[in-house]
């Protein structure tokens, strides 16, 4: 039986529309299977990318607030009846949620930003920014496992969290030291979850642009520890982490010739496999290392 559909406003962000398009494909398909329709924000703009820590640097929060206004408009226009904005990219999630918090806690800042954006409706501060993982956590126990057609039995997967889902504490969605939100999903689709102490170590983030070897060393630490604990694959919820953990394995091998490659997935890709979706909806990228037995 197909579940009733609940519509949520959805913010994709630029990465899921360009280099990580395959993550979006699998996420939207999994959401639909679980009765969640992610309705893309009309006229969305950049999230702001990096949350500005300078107290009075309000111009760098304008982009995020503008997107929150779009959520208000969707509700006003009857596209959704839901104030919770769903994100898939951890970077977008972190930036949007922190800005939302900042303007909710500082009415004066919000007023300044609203005045600057005089062509838009005022942001009323009633939107909540969440990550898709939080929606999955809310589902009835068993909602995911009931829909598994091909359990990932025997696949040992290490969830990797990085920083943006967990820190700072006021926006984190899980215990910053012992996160379980991805592991619970992996367990629900039948995989064996490998916890290891490197699941929160920095992936190197944007250092990947100008210092590949620094990122490669971090990636080596993260991946080799997971492998030592028995992991056959890594799962993450952040496109930038996924990029570093996956694409920098080439540089890792240059520094550590004994390193064995390990596949890196976006969490919804493995869900898609377990739900029995075809390769198109799993969104496997030609550049992505995929163990053959997963595709069988």
């Amino acid at each position, binding site marked *: 039986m197909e579940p009733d559909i609940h519509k949520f406003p959805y913010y994709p962000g630029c990465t899921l529309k360009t280099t990580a398009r395959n993550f979006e494909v699998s996420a939207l398909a999994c959401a639909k299977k679980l009765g969640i329709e992610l309705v893309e924000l009309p006229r969305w703009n950049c999230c702001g990318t990096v949350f500005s820590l300078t107290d009075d640097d309000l111009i760098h929060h304008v*982009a995020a607030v503008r997107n929150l206004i779009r959520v208000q408009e969707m509700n006003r226009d009857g596209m959704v009846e839901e104030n919770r904005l769903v994100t898939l990219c951890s970077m977008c999630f972190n930036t949007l949620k922190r800005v939302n918090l900042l303007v909710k806690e500082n009415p004066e800042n919000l007023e300044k930003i609203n005045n600057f954006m005089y*062509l838009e409706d005022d942001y009323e501060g009633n939107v909540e920014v969440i990550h898709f993982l939080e929606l999955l956590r809310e589902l009835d126990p068993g909602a995911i496992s009931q829909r598994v057609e091909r359990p990932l039995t025997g696949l040992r997967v290490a969830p990797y969290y990085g920083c943006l889902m967990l820190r700072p504490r006021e926006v984190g969605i899980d215990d910053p030291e012992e996160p379980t939100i991805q592991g619970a999903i992996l367990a629900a689709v039948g995989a064996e979850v490998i916890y290891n102490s490197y699941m929160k170590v920095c992936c190197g983030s944007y250092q990947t642009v100008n210092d590949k070897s620094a990122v490669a060393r971090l990636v080596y630490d993260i991946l080799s520890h997971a492998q030592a604990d028995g992991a056959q694959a890594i799962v993450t919820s952040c496109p930038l982490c996924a990029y570093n953990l996956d694409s920098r394995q080439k540089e890792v091998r240059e520094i550590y010739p004994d390193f064995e490659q390990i596949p890196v997935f976006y969490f919804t890709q493995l869900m898609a496999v377990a739900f029995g979706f075809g390769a198109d909806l799993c969104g496997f990228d030609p550049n992505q290392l995929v163990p053959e037995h997963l595709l069988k």
Partner: protein
Amino acid sequence: MKTEESIMQRIADAAKAVTRGVDAKDIEHWVTIYIMGRAYKVPADLTILTAMEYAGYRFVRGVGCRQGFCGACSTVYRKEGEYKLQTGMACQTRVEDGMYLVQIPFAPAEKAAYDISKESYDASVFLKFYPEVARCVSCNTCTKSCPQDLEVMDYVQAAIRGDFQSLAEGSFDCIQCGLCAMRCPADIVQYNVAQLGRRMYGRYGMPVPKHLITRLQEIEAGKFRGKMDQLVAVPREQLEKLYASRVREAD
């Protein structure tokens, strides 16, 4: 004093031209505008362009079609007592009392050279030739400055996420006046980004026009050669008659 007389004469001549034969004494409504800081009293129903000509300026640059299509007469102005800097096309904006004006005859903007047949049809093409697009903070200043009322920021954002269709459609009416780029705090040259996007969309995104291919094949196969040869052989007088009597679309 001879020089001054000739200037006055020139202004009077200019006034006659722009007021289409109406005598200055018959003009009821006047406004004061400031051109580069100097005050001029001009008839209230003129555009910025004609008002400047009325005041005695002769344009050698910063003017073009006079119909709001070519984008040559970009103007920046501020009204007395207002903090906001405004923008417009001089040929399309009516003068208002207390306008402080300056013309922007040229926008010194970076324009990349590329061969679209060698570029990949995704967002990376914008980062390659116009990497500053990534500096957009979504402030919307470009949109506010656009005399064509385009959603400039939206099409820049479409470029960043590789949405060529939205970019092409959203920027279609751009006249490349340069005002968005002059105002952008991130130094993005929006209209050149859009031009690259429209070219890429035309090359890779739009459906292939089958009728055009068919027609080209017909031409190459010589379908129209006979009629063309006939026309070329016709004497000039008869050709003019044929031209005048041709079937034409309504104006």
